[in-house]
């Protein structure tokens, strides 16, 4: 979304990225939660990334660059990870991020909210593989929830992001 004339310095973008990783992303539990968080910092109408905390220290183009880079990085690492790892990440997100995991699975299956998680310019085949893996992971987690429902700490659900929040 940046004009070519206003390319921010890569060193400052790297600093903003480090700040984002250390202060914000480090607090989130697992790559899937990080992905959901990063996707939620993007305005769906404009495609621009916004982060109030980072905006105190860095200019808007730098914040946007850093968030977009972090989003691509986390997405790429998740999208090509083995299904076993992927399912574990989704399950970790669902179990720690929601007081009613079964409700989350049902809602995600019906609304397909996970479609907003991919970065805009990523390769279409990678995006398709990701979506497909989410569908399979949700089915596996749903089956696991039926077999082993675990009690949840309702407080934990307040700390994790969700798509669109």
């Amino acid at each position: 979304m940046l004009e070519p004339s206003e390319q921010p310095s890569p060193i400052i973008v790297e600093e903003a990225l480090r700040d984002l990783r250390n202060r914000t992303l480090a607090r989130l539990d697992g790559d899937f939660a990080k992905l959901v968080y990063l996707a939620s910092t993007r305005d769906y109408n404009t495609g621009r990334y916004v982060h109030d905390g980072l905006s105190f220290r860095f200019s808007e183009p730098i914040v946007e660059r850093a968030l977009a880079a972090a989003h691509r990085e986390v997405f790429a690492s998740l999208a090509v990870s083995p299904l076993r790892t992927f399912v574990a990440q989704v399950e970790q997100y669902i179990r720690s991020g929601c007081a009613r995991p079964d409700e989350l699975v049902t809602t995600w299956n019906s609304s397909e909210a996970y479609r907003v998680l991919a970065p805009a310019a990523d390769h279409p085949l990678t995006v398709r593989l990701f979506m497909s893996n989410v569908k399979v992971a949700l089915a596996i987690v749903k089956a696991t929830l039926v077999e082993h429902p675990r009690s949840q700490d309702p407080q934990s659900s307040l700390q994790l992001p969700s798509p669109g929040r």
Partner: protein
Amino acid sequence: MIGILSLSAVALLLIGLLLFLLRRSEATLSSDLSPLGSDDELSNAYESFEACCGELLDRMFGPDDWDFVLNCAPKQVQRLFLSERKELARYWLCQVRSRAKTAMRIHVAHARNSDKLEPFLELRLAIDYLMVRAKCELVAAVLSLRGPMALRKMIKQADGLSDQLTALLALVSKADALPSHTRVRR
């Protein structure tokens, strides 16, 4: 005698079908010539293709994910996994076909305006293009007949198909003498 006659009829039918498919493919190719494809389109075609292959194909067609689903998930999920991978494989094949077609479309457009055609290079391009198309059909046939997991035994074929397409795109770029930034680094 009847056996020989019916075999000949089947052979003739197959040859006829092949000729029909070839003519149709040529017709589609020439009908696609306008509007003229740009060099950027070709450049984007192989840059994005090169970026996605290898690791992604291993993940899609490799044995690890299927083994995991087979051991850890109920039958219903196994069916879902197979149908999802089949869709992915179809999409990937569609991309390979469409990129090969784009490359040839751009090349034919360039070649029409060029007064220095190299017959051997043109022949090699045509053979490579037909090989890519034929391999696509083979992979599609295996996918339809035996499902996506049969492709894991064909992972080398799939990788080979990607390599072949990359080579084709590089050859097109060489033949059309594109600016250096649009050439494939191999």
